[in-house]
């Protein structure tokens, strides 16, 4: 059982030469599966492998896109049936760019995906709002101002307490996320239970 487990360190698991090679390239970040899941060529990842920051950003971008698949927005959130799903990104143009690459040519439930780069204070009438940065106070400020966002995603320490629905965490060198069901419910967004199964923590109530 142990032997076959997805090891934290690539070296500890020697299933195949190809696997070992890929893991080695990712320099400890076991993200090959995520990259493959997003259809990104390993070559691209390799080209931009400037550091763990870039890798983390790519993983998070992929996650952001995937969250759309497990989120059910109210019908009133869309102007019409053909209206696209919009993703707003605040505080990281790199992330916006990365996300733009991820969603290119993809649809969620038959809707196009649009990525918009927002500034702090911009009216944030988007379906999913990613607030970059680990500054919880800033994130809280932005969350308060951007009350129009239906599914806010943060990556700061106190994201959920400040009203975010999903908050990225780095746990054991892996990108994980916590979920607040109360916030989702407040925003009238239904999150799939299947998403919750892979969440690091699911918060219900004002904890």
């Amino acid at each position, binding site marked *: 059982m142990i032997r076959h487990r*997805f090891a934290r360190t690539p070296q500890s698991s020697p299933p*195949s030469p190809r696997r070992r090679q890929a893991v080695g390239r990712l320099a400890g970040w076991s993200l090959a599966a995520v990259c*493959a899941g997003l259809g990104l060529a390993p070559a691209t990842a390799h080209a931009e492998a400037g550091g763990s920051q870039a890798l983390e950003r790519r993983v998070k971008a992929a996650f952001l896109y995937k969250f759309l*698949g*497990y989120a059910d927005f109210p019908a009133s959130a869309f102007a019409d049936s053909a209206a696209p799903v919009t993703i707003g990104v605040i505080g990281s143009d790199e992330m916006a760019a990365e996300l733009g690459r991820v969603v290119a040519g993809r649809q969620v439930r038959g809707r196009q995906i649009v990525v918009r780069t927002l500034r702090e204070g911009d009216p944030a009438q988007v379906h999913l709002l990613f607030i970059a940065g680990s500054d919880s106070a800033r994130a809280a400020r932005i969350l308060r101002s951007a009350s129009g966002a239906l599914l806010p995603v943060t990556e700061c320490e106190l994201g959920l307490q400040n009203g975010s629905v999903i908050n990225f965490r780095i746990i054991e060198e892996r990108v994980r996320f916590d979920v607040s069901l109360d916030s989702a419910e407040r925003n009238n967004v239904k999150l799939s239970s299947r998403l919750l199964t892979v969440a690091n923590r699911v918060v219900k109530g004002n904890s």
Partner: protein
Amino acid sequence: MQSRQHLNDGGSVRSKLIKMAVFTTLAALLSASIAMLLLDLRTFQRYWVDDLTTQADIMASVTAPALAFNDASTAGQQLAVLRARPQILAGAVYANTGARFATYTKAGLEQSLPPRAQPAGYRIDNGELEVWHNVVENGELVGTVFLRSRYGLVERLLNYGAILGGVMLGALVIAALVASRLQAAITRPLEAVTNVARQVMQQRDFTLRVPGNNSGEIGVLVEAFNDMLAEIGRRAEALQAANRTLEHEMDVRQKAEGALIVADRRKDEFLATLAHELRNPLAPIRTGLDILRIRSGDAQATQRATDIMERQLRQMVRLVDDLLDVSRINTGKFAIKMGRVELKAVVNDALEVVRSYIELHGHELAIDLPDRPVFLHGDATRLAQILSNLLNNAAKYTNRGGKVTLGARVEDKTLVLEVSDTGIGLAPEMLDSVFEMFVQVDSTLERTNAGLGVGLSLARKLVELHGGTIAASSEGLGRGSRFTVRLPIVVDPEPLSKPTPAAFISTETYRILLADDNVDFVNSIGALLTAMGHSVVITHNGPDALAAAARFCPDYAFLDIGLPQMSGYDLARGIRKLSCGPMTVLIAVTGWGQEKDRQLAFEAGFDHHMVKPVRFEQIEEILGNRSIIKKLRT
């Protein structure tokens, strides 16, 4: 042996029937079982594949988020749910890159999992079923699920086969039981038929029948078999009866043939003897005639010659009389006139006949009679004939100078007459047959001793007609013989009338008409009657006789039947029509002694019928009865 064979025979049909049922059941069950087995295995496989595919689908759905969000530990936990399915040996989730993402193996098992993902589908290998299933999320292939399960096909096959085999065995046993019960309806009657057939073969008893009341073809068979037995029995019986009849007839015919041969031989001997016996008296008679012719003057010689001739003639007449009597007895036309007879008279009559013959042989004759009179019921003439025959016989078969004894005694109500001699005797085997017709004691005896074999036969028949018995005894050849006659006695002491005819004859005279063309005979009789004092008219033809009768009005008319010009019958009828005719006693004198002739004579009006040659005593007897006739007619 028999019963075992019987069981074997019965068992073969029975076992065939049971085998038939069992094998039919077996064939049906086998084909049904094979079909069921194949169907089940196919269903089984499809079920297992479907089941595992469904399981893989569920796993795919469950692990899809884990794959999407790269959560291998969650995927591992989710795979661990497969614990609930013990038949699943191992499972794995592969990322869409083909790399293994998470795994599960059943506790306690060493399983090698494929390192790379493979196309969707299933594979059955070495008792294991493997399923590859794609994980599709949001229209994108995110990975592959692999499940490996125990595939219990052989196990299933064995289990199912065992159950089917058990069921089949049970069904066969039931079929055998049912068949063994049902077959009895067929085999039992067959067995019964076989048994009866065997018994019939062994015992030849066609009265045996197959019991039971069966219906259908078996019933028809049994019935037909029984009918057949009955028919065979009838035929066999008929055949046996026919055989018995044939055997009996054959026997009878053979006896008859033997008897005919014997009778023929006796007849030949009889003819030879008869000729001899008839010839014998002729020589002395011729000699007597010669004496009379040559020495007619010598009174003494004439007397002696006349004596000889008379004796010889009497012997000859006796012989012929016996023959005629025997013939009458044999043809059942012999009648005896029963009456009251005194023994001494009978003995005297008999002695009168045979005394001269006994003396001629130089025998001593001893007579011993009871003192008081003994009365018998019978015909005096015939009783005398019995005695004379026995005495004659004794004289004949005793060598010259022997002794002949006649004894009589009364035992209870039976008169026992014994005639014994000191003659040649009888062999024991001859004691019965001497009484048969034409049987002589010994044909090798000298002819002089030989008789006709008629006398004893006649004697026995006469005795039997009188209700008596006769037996011969002898102490052996050469030691004499003894003939014993037993006759019933009538004990009535005093008869009402005791006529003594002789007295009347001597005192009374009649008118007598004699008609015969035998001139010598009629003349000699006429002379005798005339000498006795009667008035006699002699005629030699019918018309003369009729004329004489009309004129003479006789008391007695002795008429020959074969008269010239007019038959005795016509003459009798003519006489009866005369005025004095009814009073005349008519006596037919004829050479024909048959009953038919006698009947004709009575029809023509005759009162008596005499067969030639007529002895004078007979005429005297008829004349002696005249008084009785007179009484009847008046």
